[in-house]
């Protein structure tokens, strides 16, 4: 099987600060995997490079066989990369429904339509309701997004990403800032979404229950370099990873 995403010796520096260096790995279609590492290891930066928010200094990033380095985000998203952000990136003054509906409209190529009301776009509206139902946000569909609880805003961000029907979904710390109870729900939900939407899913997490609970592959980033890659069992037993990140009593 050929990888859906392949990083080949990717670099990024800000001024003199090397944030990612020589990162190489391959993600298989349908895989669910985690990226872990200390704060400032370059995890978010790596996502930014994949999605075209940042231009890589060197290396190649192949998505579905095509090198996407140098392409702007809107072209990368059009090829099937979806993303939710470390800090929920939503449209605060729009309703929850419109947040997802605008993404559905975009997917359907209907964002230039200027005559009929958004309410008249049945397909986009139905799709949006479907996604909100999968996320358990349908009861709040008509609230303004800024009124949502923190955890629900994170969910909505994922909903916007899902509306674009991505093949590869990148989630940046989906449980950040959540209570243990919410984390548990999020863990269950993400596994469900992964199956329901037949995604290839890569998530960044500090929550080890989530990482070792649902990831098939775990990659460890430290000071911008890939320290280790393997199954949860391999990573758990890896001496280097234990000293660098997990700690002895893990």
């Amino acid at each position, binding site marked *: 099987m050929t990888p859906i995403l392949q990083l080949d010796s990717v670099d990024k520096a800000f001024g003199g600060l090397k944030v990612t260096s020589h990162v190489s790995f391959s993600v298989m279609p349908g895989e669910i995997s985690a990226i872990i590492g200390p704060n400032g290891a370059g995890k978010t930066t790596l996502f930014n490079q994949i999605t075209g928010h940042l231009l890589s200094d060197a290396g190649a990033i192949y998505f579905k066989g095509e090198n996407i380095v140098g392409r702007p985000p809107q072209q990368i998203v059009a090829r099937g990369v979806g993303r939710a952000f470390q800090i929920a990136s939503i449209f605060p003054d729009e309703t929850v429904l419109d947040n997802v509906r605008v993404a559905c409209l*975009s997917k359907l190529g209907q964002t230039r339509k200027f005559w009929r009301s958004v309410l008249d776009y049945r397909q986009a509206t139905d799709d949006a309701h479907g996604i909100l139902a999968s996320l358990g946000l349908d009861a709040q569909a008509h609230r303004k997004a800024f009124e949502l609880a923190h955890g629900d805003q994170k969910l909505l961000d994922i909903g916007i990403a899902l509306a674009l029907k991505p093949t590869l979904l990148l989630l940046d710390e989906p449980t950040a800032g959540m209570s243990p109870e919410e984390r548990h729900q999020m863990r269950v939900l993400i596994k469900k979404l992964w199956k329901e939407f037949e995604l290839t899913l890569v998530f960044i997490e500090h929550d080890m229950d989530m990482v070792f609970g649902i990831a098939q592959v775990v990659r460890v980033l430290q000071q911008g370099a890939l320290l280790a890659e393997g199954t949860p069992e391999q990573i758990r037993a890896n001496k280097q990873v234990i000293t660098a990140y997990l700690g002895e009593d893990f």
Partner: protein
Amino acid sequence: MTSNTTRNLRAASLWGVIVLAFALVPVLSTSSYHTNLACHILIWSLFAVSFNMLWGVTGMLSLGQALYYGLGAYSVGLMVNYLGSQWYLPAMGVGLLAAALLALLLGMLVIRVGGVYFTMLTLAFGQLAWQITFKWYDFTGGDDGIQGIIPPGILENGTAYYYFVLTVVILSIWVLKRMAFSPFGLVLRCVQQNPDRVRFLGRRVRRNQLRIYVISAFFTALAGGLMAGVDGSIHTDMLFWTTSGEVILMTVLGGINQFFGPFVGAAVIILIEDLVGARTEYWSLIIGIIIMVIVLVFPKGLVGEAARVRSLMARAGLGRRA
């Protein structure tokens, strides 16, 4: 979907009342004075509503909309002056085309910079256009402006011209309203709230900003073209930055987050100017104070506050359900 239908009906009936009220002005009033006043309100409303598509909806604060307003007016004024009255309507068309083209060119330049630089650049271009009009006396009449701009045929009649303005303004605002609530309008609001996310919906932020900048300029020039025939004279003041400032004031006063806010704001400011201006020579001071008080008391604008009160009442179970 019944709630949608009632909402649509209610919106349509509000529309009906507004249009009817304006349509009755020449019938109910014997003096052309009131018709003239209503005409000013209509035209400034169109100006303000199209400005708000740019600012309130998309978040682009232009301080140079007077450029397009003046362009619309001077296209008509100059062509009628040099070529004759029969060129009045074609001149309006020329003004619209010129405004759209200029907005496309300038837009590609000023949208690139964004934020406060966008505001400053629009101001600079607006003032440049004013300077040129002001200085180029031989062609534009400079500070004297242009007088005797007579609309053609039946439109020469004040009442007929009023109904012409009413029709064009209502149609234009209707088009803009449809746009505001369409997918395109939704994208524009999203561009204001979170441009990065819009890019990650696969949409181009600047492209959408450019579209609305051109559309806004188009309808602003339409307002300017209509204004040329109201009093039969135009002046370089139409291009001065204070004109851009006044339209901002109207928009703030009515409420930038409400589609009809700028409409109400324009009406209120013109009525205040009319009432106060007729009674005292300190009118600009008094208008300033009145507007300041309104803005302080109603921070969301007149229409914005009204909507808030209505939704509060609905929540308390007092009024009709929102």
